[in-house]
């Protein structure tokens, strides 16, 4: 690799990889928000993926691909348990259940010494590099873009606009919602595992309420009319505090402000374009 790239990555690798991971988190949010579901569990699922993968790698030496797979399956199962009962209820229940879930997981991590307790887990080998992260991101994004242009995308849009009308045209709304939640959880878990394996340290406080709302802000800023929206939102909101140094301490304030302003003034996000849904 050219020297300048090597130097750049050495100095900013963490940041660049972080962008990739946040983009995957944005897509995780897209999966549910595109159907109009407000699941705030992405941070919690990310935490499950992070911890599960770290334990498997550090304590059991499991090969990395298997670790990534496990990091997707574990949160998916958790997602099903907490969200199945909310499928028949109005959307607010899912939001509450997922927020609460994040908090419970945090308590679990702090109180479990096997995974480091309050001090977290360190010494995770660096197995996730640029190719893996951005390769996976590209794959996932391509999958979403393709799905959006097909009957799946139309079903998503129908559910988001009018669930009963969607049922009336034969969309199995419950199945779609559950699938979306599972995919969202799996992607968040994957992001967590990737993050753990390049930052070499994870702690219980990284996956709480603030993180969940931050992930939401990616999707709100970019809008969910296209999968590119949350990706763009993630890049902008992750990069801005780095590029504008004074903004750094105000990162969370800024994210919150972004959500408020966008929801009120730009409900479809900055990429509020109409995407073609004909394959």
């Amino acid at each position, binding site marked *: 690799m050219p020297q300048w790239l090597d130097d750049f990555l050495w100095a900013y690798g963490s940041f660049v990889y972080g962008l990739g991971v946040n983009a995957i988190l944005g897509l995780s949010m897209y999966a549910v928000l595109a159907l*109009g579901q407000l699941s705030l569990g992405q941070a919690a699922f990310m935490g499950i993926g992070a911890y599960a993968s770290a334990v498997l790698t550090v304590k059991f030496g499991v090969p990395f691909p298997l670790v990534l797979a496990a990091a997707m399956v574990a949160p998916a199962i958790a997602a099903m348990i907490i969200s199945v009962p909310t499928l*028949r209820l109005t959307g607010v229940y899912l*939001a*509450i259940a997922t927020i609460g879930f994040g908090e*419970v997981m945090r308590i679990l991590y702090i109180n479990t010494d096997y995974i480091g307790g309050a001090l977290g887990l360190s010494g995770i080998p660096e197995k996730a590099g640029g190719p893996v992260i951005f390769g996976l991101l590209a794959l996932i994004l391509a999958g979403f873009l393709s799905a959006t242009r097909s009957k799946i995308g139309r079903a998503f849009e129908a559910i988001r606009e009018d669930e009963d009308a969607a049922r009336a045209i034969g969309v199995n709304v419950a199945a779609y919602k559950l699938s979306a939640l599972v995919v969202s959880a799996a992607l968040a878990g994957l992001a967590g595992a990737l993050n753990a394996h390049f930052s070499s340290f994870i702690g219980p406080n990284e996956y709480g309420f603030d993180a969940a709302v931050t992930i939401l802000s990616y999707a709100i800023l970019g809008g969910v009319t296209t999968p590119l929206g949350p990706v763009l939102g993630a890049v902008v909101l992750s990069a801005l505090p780095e590029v504008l140094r004074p903004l750094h301490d105000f990162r969370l304030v800024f994210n919150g402000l972004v959500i408020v302003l966008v*929801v009120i003034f730009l409900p479809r996000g900055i990429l509020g374009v109409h995407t073609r849904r004909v394959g």
Partner: protein
Amino acid sequence: MLAQQLFNALVLGSVYALFSMGFTLTFGVLRVINLLYAFYVAAGAFLSLVAVRDFGVPLWAAGLFGAVGTGAIAVVCDTAVLAPLRRARAPELSSLIVTLGAALLLNSLMFLAFGAEVRRFPATLLSQAPIDLGLLQIGQIQLLIIAVVALLAALLFLFIERTRLGVAVRALAENPEAAALMGINVGVMFSGVSFLAAVLIAVAGILIGLNFDAVHPYMGEPLMLRGFAVVVIGGLGNIRGALVAGLALGFVEVMTAGYLSSNFKDAAGFAAMVITLWLRPAGLFGKAVTRRA
């Protein structure tokens, strides 16, 4: 020992109930789970603290100041952030999202302004010596909590059930369009309910600050998370349910801490909530908000 546990449970449950009643009132009328409530808890506590420490105001006045001040903040927030969405007939979840953003914004600002340092109400405010009743010891603060919550709950129920304004609030919760057609000034009522709920929340914050001898910007979060569990278990929008479930949660937590494990008491409420969602989603007193899947 058991008597002491039960008393502690009553105290803890009272605070949960107070917070949850405000929380559920907002949901019932404004149809929004307002995540700014964690912020209001801290705001109420901080306002009172400043009044007491920097202006030497007696506790009861400081409490009033904290409550009314927070109520005013709530009205401003509602007007700035929620009212535009109501006017645009935005979907319900938009309101939730916007309060999320506002909560992140205000909590972070408060943190930047005040830092993580834990502040305390002056120890001289209330007598620290507990009243010894043999079987149990009762602190003045704990008595204050029970008394205040009982009073506020009674006043709230009287207001909602017996006054004309309370009837208007219930009408608004039932059917906002019909209420508007019947001449109820919907905008004013929404502001009023925001104010009222925030007052309850702020008082909860002050009581918590006194009881746990700690005031800091994120003090409201644990309470809000309990609040979620309580309003789901009690029934979204149901004030009676919030009261009962709040007290029940206090009981469950104290018992879990005392007889099972102190570490996991915080998870007890959430576990109870998930069980409720699986078994009886409407909660103890709520109307089923289900629809066919």
